[in-house]
């Protein structure tokens, strides 16, 4: 299976969508080669707008374009989208419930060598808290394509979180993934690992190691963090009685928090959260950083053991 970054899959899927739908306009902020909107720009120059290094203006222009009937896809790095332009997203895009899909790449610590200033570990939290904002974090290339297509048909603002690092495929090209519906990738009885983004593949690897130890766990890909698939989550809480969340994001405000909010209200079971522990990232190779910040496959295995002890 070939490795592919979710940003690569985004660029390809965006081009295909652009061929089918004339109302699509794409914006970027001088990062089109990195975010992979460059291909769309080459084929549809009249529907591509480079905002230059001006993310706030890009979000404001996106709102205006959407208000005029366009379906807008706006891309830059996650830290400059969710961070720099937060208030434009909140007040111009979300408050007006406009059809702007913010497709942010280079999320999380696997940005690597560029370092902490460029590694967004807060963007899920920032976007999730905005009323009406859908938040989607695909695990691999094929699911990115599938979810992007569905996002086009779902009116309203959305935040699609994409990565720089090439990752293994979790899904087949012809997967039947559905927006807003989590996926039970593995079914086990003792605990449930709920993961998103590039951590889904690692959760599956951990599941394999745990299986060999005779520990039976479920693995859920919670690609849509908002609206969260409550039904599936409560079902897994009932069936397995313990949950571990795994994300390449701060343990504050992201997937782990979203899961805790639902589980504590509807069916309290022990939940442990894995993610970046309230700190900034730094320069390093992506794999090295995942190990350094405790997001290795072994770390997940160990955390499941801890979870079973307190269950």
């Amino acid at each position, binding site marked *: 299976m070939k490795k592919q970054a979710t940003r690569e899959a985004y660029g390809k899927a965006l081009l295909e969508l652009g061929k089918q739908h004339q109302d699509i306009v794409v914006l970027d902020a*001088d990062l*089109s080669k990195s975010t992979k909107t460059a291909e769309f720009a080459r084929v549809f120059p009249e529907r591509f707008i480079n905002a230059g*290094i001006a993310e706030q203006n890009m979000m404001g222009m996106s709102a205006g374009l959407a208000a005029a009937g366009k379906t807008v896809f706006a891309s830059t790095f996650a830290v400059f989208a969710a961070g720099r332009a937060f208030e434009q997203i909140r007040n111009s895009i979300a408050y007006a419930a406009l059809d702007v899909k913010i497709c942010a790449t280079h999320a999380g610590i696997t940005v690597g060598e560029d370092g902490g200033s460029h590694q967004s570990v807060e963007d899920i939290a920032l976007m999730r808290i905005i009323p009406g904002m859908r938040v989607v974090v695909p695990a691999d290339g094929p699911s990115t394509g599938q979810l992007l297509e569905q996002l086009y048909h779902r009116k309203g603002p959305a935040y699609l979180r994409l990565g720089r690092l090439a990752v293994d495929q979790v899904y087949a090209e012809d997967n039947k993934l559905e927006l807003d519906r989590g996926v039970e990738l593995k079914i086990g009885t003792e605990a449930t690992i709920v993961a998103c983004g590039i951590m889904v593949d690692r959760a599956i690897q951990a599941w394999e190691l745990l299986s060999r130890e005779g520990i039976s766990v479920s693995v859920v890909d919670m690609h849509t963090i908002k609206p969260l698939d409550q039904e599936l989550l409560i079902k897994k809480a009932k069936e397995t009685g313990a949950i571990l969340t795994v994300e390449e994001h701060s343990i504050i405000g992201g997937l782990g928090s979203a899961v805790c909010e639902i589980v504590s209200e509807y069916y309290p079971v022990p939940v442990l959260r894995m993610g970046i522990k309230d700190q900034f990232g*730094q320069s390093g*190779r992506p794999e090295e950083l995942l190990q350094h910040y405790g997001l290795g496959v072994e770390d997940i295995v160990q955390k499941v053991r801890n979870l079973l002890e307190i269950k």
Partner: protein
Amino acid sequence: MREINDRAVLQVKEKALAIRRHIVTMLSAAGSGHTGGSLSASDIVACLYFWEMNLDPANPDWENRDRFVLSKGHAAPVLYAALAERGFFPTEQLMTLRKLGSPLQGHPDMRKLAGVEASTGSLGQGISWAVGMALAGKIDKKPHRVYVMVGDGELEEGMVWEASMAAAHYKLDNLLLFVDHNGLQIDGKISEVLSPEPISDKFRAFGWHVIEVDGHHIPDIMEALNQARRVKGQPVVIVAATTKGKGCSFMEDRVEWHGTAPNREEMDKALAELV
């Protein structure tokens, strides 16, 4: 006012060359990073660190030191090379650039490396930071000066103009801005992506004293720096015409060298030219 003489010019030239050699070498060792914009800024940074600024490498926190903020933080290698050459840390440490645990982060981190005055990397923010430092200098009636460098693509950030308005409003004649005008950003020429031109006229309209120089001509940069010291009651911007990748013929004015590090072969080729 500093004296401009042959000896000083020669010394700065030698340092600029040493800085360029370090840039190419450390980026090659790192395997990633921003080569073009580090090389375009080398002559200006050499003038600042080896002629213009009052600094004490043995006492990096000396309160009357001049400050330099690299707002275009992706050009971190030029800053690191200058700091190492100036004696803030051993030059061998340059080879740890971008490696896990190194104080030489991909973008400058003031909490990790002595001599770095501001944590930058998010374009547009360093200039506001420098305005803040210059305001503090005024409040405390300190003699030191604050220097800041932005890229010409960086001028597209609205924040740059908010900072510029503030600097003129508060009459910050202790602030000196360099625009590294190399004509390129990531997606192409600044004139094609989103033109910030006419740059000098914009700054003039914002209340700044504008000086235009060739950013690779060391005596001219020195002359501009001396001229800037004589300006009272307004901030000064030096719009420096530069070439991205300057010094390595195969990188010069080529957009693909913005965020690419030279491999071994390319490094050798570059070092052969940098003599």
